[in-house]
């Protein structure tokens, strides 16, 4: 136990080094960079895979297989965390199909959510979600958009205490209910918080990200590209020449490196239906990362476009 605590402390210290640690990683190895989950020390690749919209393809066999190929490329590039929700239509079933098709059930860090206004219906919904994923258990379950969180959070914490779940979290998006998020982060023993954060939407830098560091809570970042709109806007402009200083091959990596180089961020979860794009996204977890000064330069550059 003492050894585990020591390793956790070392990993936490490394994580606290923030951007500096990435440069060393980039020169030492070509694997995707990781960051430790503060509550356990477990390393997670900095870039995960979201499923909102992109994996909601219904029972279209061709589209399901295409999603499985995205997952195959994701895992091949070193990815682990896939995030979904019962709110995302058929996405959970499509992820389950992909896990079976690619034989990746042992590789995935399975992050899902509970999303129902009834606390009593939470366990049944979680069980349905688990069966759709074709997994024995989830790694992380989050209360989606804080819906009925006073009822669901005790359920999730009890599952964790019983060994049926590894991590517990809460989510929001697009800046909603941040005050309530902060209150839960400050008062409840959660492992993860999921928020929106990108080059333009930076409100979480003020309070939530510092609080996550203080409370040793891992941070998942959703909508890193503003659901594609940010990249669509950026594509109209040339990537600045100085982007090569942080090994960016395009705007997607520029946007992702900005996010995952924040020392409080554990993992960003861009969503895509393209194998080429998932490889590009995973590339953001490699190479040199921006330091604090470079991050300010990146944000200022994009804000001025």
């Amino acid at each position, binding site marked *: 136990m003492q050894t585990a605590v020591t390793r956790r402390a070392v990993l936490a210290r490394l994580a606290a080094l923030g951007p500096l640690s990435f440069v060393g990683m980039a020169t030492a190895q070509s694997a995707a960079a990781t960051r430790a989950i503060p509550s356990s020390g477990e390393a997670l690749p900095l870039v995960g895979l979201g499923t909102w919209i992109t994996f909601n*393809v219904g029972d279209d066999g*061709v589209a399901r297989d295409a999603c499985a190929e995205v997952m195959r490329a994701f895992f091949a590039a070193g990815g682990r965390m896939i995030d979904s929700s019962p709110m995302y239509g058929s996405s959970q079933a499509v992820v389950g199909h992909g896990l079976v098709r690619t034989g990746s059930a042992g590789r995935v860090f399975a992050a899902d959510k509970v999303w129902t206004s009834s606390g009593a219906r939470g366990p049944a919904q979680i069980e349905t979600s688990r069966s759709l994923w074709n997994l024995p258990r989830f790694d992380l379950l989050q209360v989606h958009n804080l819906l009925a969180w006073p009822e669901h959070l005790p359920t999730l914490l009890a599952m964790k205490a019983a060994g049926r779940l590894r991590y517990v979290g809460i989510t929001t998006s*697009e800046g909603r209910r941040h005050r309530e998020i902060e209150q839960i982060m400050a008062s409840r023993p959660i492992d993860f918080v999921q928020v929106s954060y990108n080059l333009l939407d930076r409100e979480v830098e003020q309070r939530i990200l510092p609080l996550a560091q203080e409370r040793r809570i891992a941070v998942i970042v959703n909508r890193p590209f503003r659901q594609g709109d940010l990249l669509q806007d950026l594509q109209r402009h040339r990537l600045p020449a100085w982007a090569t200083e942080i090994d960016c091959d395009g705007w997607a990596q520029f946007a992702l490196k900005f996010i995952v180089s924040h020392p409080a961020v554990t993992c960003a979860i861009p969503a895509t*239906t393209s194998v080429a794009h998932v490889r590009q996204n995973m590339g953001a977890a490699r190479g040199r990362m921006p330091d604090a000064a470079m991050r300010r330069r990146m944000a200022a550059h994009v804000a001025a476009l």
Partner: protein
Amino acid sequence: MSEWWTYRPSDFLMFSERTYRRLFELLNADLWPGQLVAIAAALLLFALLRRGSLGLGRLVFANVAAAWLCTAWAFFWQRYAGINWAAPGFAAAFALEGSLLLALAITGRAAGLRAAGEARAMAGRGLLLAAIVYPVLGLVLGRPTSQAEVIGLAPDPTAIGTLGILLVCRWDESSLPGGARLGAVALLWAIPVAWCLVTGLTLWTLHAPEAIIAPALALLALWAARLSPTSSSLPPPHAADR
């Protein structure tokens, strides 16, 4: 949801345009050659409406009822429900419209048809024609024929065509109590108009260029309906309507 004002239509969009288009591709593959039957039936309707015969109300309503019930089942329930939580509700609304139309066709407590020369009837036939040629829109926008949205199977042309038919109809004032008649007629109009607005919003969030078409045609239908009252001054429908 105390922060409801922070939500935009795009926040409720659960699927991509590519996935939405694939619904029609898969639907068309499943139902082929049903598209030919549906278009032939719609062309027959168009011809009947053009004649303006008072004895054809039941046939018209039976035909349109079949279109709504088919769309409710084959598109909304079988396909759309897989990617949209709201689809079962849409299926119920389409089934309700189809059931109302079917009830009117079976009981004969429906309507006659307006004279071909009436402005309102001409607008109605124009809308039906627009619904029949709706698949051409997809071709113009560069989409494959396999994704064509065909009246009677796909909701947008079905709703547009139905608004056209409702414009041509002349209700039998004597067949139903006033309140019931007005309620049924209002519902017959409300569901296709509401769908035109819903699909316009959906297509707009998908950045589809044709997003304006269905809402614009619905507004056109509502405007045309004001050209003459729902119950025309023509004599009640002939006994052959029953």
